[in-house]
């Protein structure tokens, strides 16, 4: 039995999860929520994480009914993400690892999402659509590496949604994306927006500029409602995502799709992907907000895989990075294929 605790805090969520051989024992989380019209800034987000991290850690241990002595390994998010919050969380992870005398393992955030999705859904070898506030990638595993087949060439899909929410002052509680999803259900009129797919890549910045410019004018002149805009934006963005996923599947000959990342809990996206899969005779795997949105258990799970395959991170190497180490050449995570 191997018990791994995972620390995640690369963006506005701080989560700590404990996993014992594929079983999630606890996974508490807090979210830093900003007022409507505002995004989260690194230093303020780090301050939020510092204020709650020890409480969350205590909750994680209590809910799992474990003591530090039961933990075999401490996993933390190495990156990519926002610098200040990553540093805060890494510092706590390093400290407890030394206090408890346990090895550390630094985990790539993206791999955390993919590994958690595979654990929860039991997807075997899926084409993965990873969509969140900071990432938009279509990933597949080939020749012993996770490889990116398609991605955004500018901003992430979640970032596009979040910034649109700021333009028309949609609440950030519980998240802008969730509120857009609810409003979109009441949208009736389809407003034409730019649609940009380049091969297996997508671009969202043009759509955002267009809607930032047009939204308030259209609302003021009653050409459409805020609900219509939410609806049209979702339909356009998600069609692009489903299209590049399908292209990657055709390219790789894959018959499984796994959606991970915060935007992945959007039910309309899941529904559209489901229709595409049905037409191709493929299978869709998706999870809910507990595991789609950033959480500690996903870092624990990827950490578990790495720890079991003998990878640990020595103290001098326990730095963080804002950038992705993911390149076209792929990222190796040995022992992760089953």
């Amino acid at each position, binding site marked *: 039995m191997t018990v791994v605790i995972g620390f995640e805090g*690369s963006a506005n969520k701080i989560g700590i999860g404990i996993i014992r051989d594929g079983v999630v024992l606890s996974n508490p989380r807090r979210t830093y929520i900003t007022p409507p019209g505002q995004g989260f800034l690194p230093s303020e987000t780090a301050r939020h994480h510092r204020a709650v991290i020890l409480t969350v850690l205590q909750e994680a241990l209590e809910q799992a009914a474990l003591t530090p002595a039961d933990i075999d390994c401490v996993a933390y998010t190495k990156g990519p993400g926002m610098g200040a919050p990553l540093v805060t969380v890494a510092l706590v992870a390093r400290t407890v690892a030394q206090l408890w005398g346990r090895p550390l393992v630094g985990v790539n955030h993206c791999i955390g999402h993919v590994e958690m999705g595979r654990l929860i859904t039991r997807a075997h070898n899926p084409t993965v659509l990873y969509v969140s506030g900071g990432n938009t990638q279509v990933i597949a595993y080939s020749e012993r590496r996770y490889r990116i087949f398609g991605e955004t*060439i500018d901003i992430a899909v979640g970032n596009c949604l979040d910034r649109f929410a700021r333009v028309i002052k949609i609440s950030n509680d519980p998240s802008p994306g969730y509120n857009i999803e609810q409003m979109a259900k009441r949208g009736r009129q389809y407003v034409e927006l730019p649609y940009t797919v380049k091969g297996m*890549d997508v671009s969202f910045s043009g759509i955002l500029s267009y809607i930032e410019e047009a939204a308030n004018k259209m609302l003021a002149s009653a050409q459409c409602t805020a609900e219509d805009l939410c609806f049209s934006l979702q339909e356009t963005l998600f069609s692009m995502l489903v299209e590049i996923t399908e292209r990657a599947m055709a*390219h790789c000959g894959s018959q499984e799709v796994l959606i991970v990342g915060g935007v992945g809990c959007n039910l309309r996206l899941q529904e559209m992907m489901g229709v595409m899969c049905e037409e191709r005779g493929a299978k869709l795997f998706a999870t809910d907000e507990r595991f789609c949105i950033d959480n500690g258990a996903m870092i624990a799970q990827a950490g578990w895989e790495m720890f079991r395959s003998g990878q640990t991170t020595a103290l001098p190497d326990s730095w963080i990075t804002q950038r992705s180490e993911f390149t076209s050449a792929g990222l190796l995570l040995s022992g992760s294929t089953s």
Partner: protein
Amino acid sequence: MEPEESMAVSDFLIKGNLLKQGAEARVYRDTFLGKSTIIKERFPKKYRHPLLDEKLTHRRTVQEVRSIQRCRKAGIPTPVVHFVDYTSHCIFLEDIVDSVTVRDHIVSTQQRPHPGPTLEHLAPLAAKVGQIIAKMHDEDVVHGDLTTSNMLLRTSGYVVGDAAELSLVLIDFGLSYISALPEDKGVDLYVLEKAFLSTHPNTEALFQKLLKSYAASSKKSSAVIKKLDEVRLRGRKRSMVG
């Protein structure tokens, strides 16, 4: 388009042989006016909004035909367009017989044992690809979906490593458009670079050959290559949160 003729198109599809179902079209092979013909049918995608679907499907059919014509006029090898039906979104194209995709060719060359490094055998091909893309970009055609699967290599009379005999045909112009902007051409190369390197592991040096040949062949390459360098630094590579 008369309704009778539209029906005739669907008849064609019924009796034609389905070759493959790609991400956005079904491809059939049949005889049309006595010639072996590829029929590319863009069928409705049920996952997307009907208005968006109709708009995209129509635009892509139009763009594909337009770019193919423009390339052909400039002497860039692409299939002949025999017939287009905008009602059923079907394009009737010349069948490039005796050809393989560049993708399959690279894969099989890499797998075959060779005297000397594989790169040397593929270098003339990479150079040719760079040349053709340069020519296409000089005509302001941006392909939009450059991959090694969207290039055909004629196999008749071709000997591996013989540059003079290389005959390439560009296909799949559905995402193409006309633009003179170095930005658009830079992104076109970026899309190819990623597709190339993810499909064919350990071919970085080969792709450099391709870019070098592109730079040497195109009149306006320096601005495009500069943009390519810029595009590489965008998105997740610049900063990444979430």
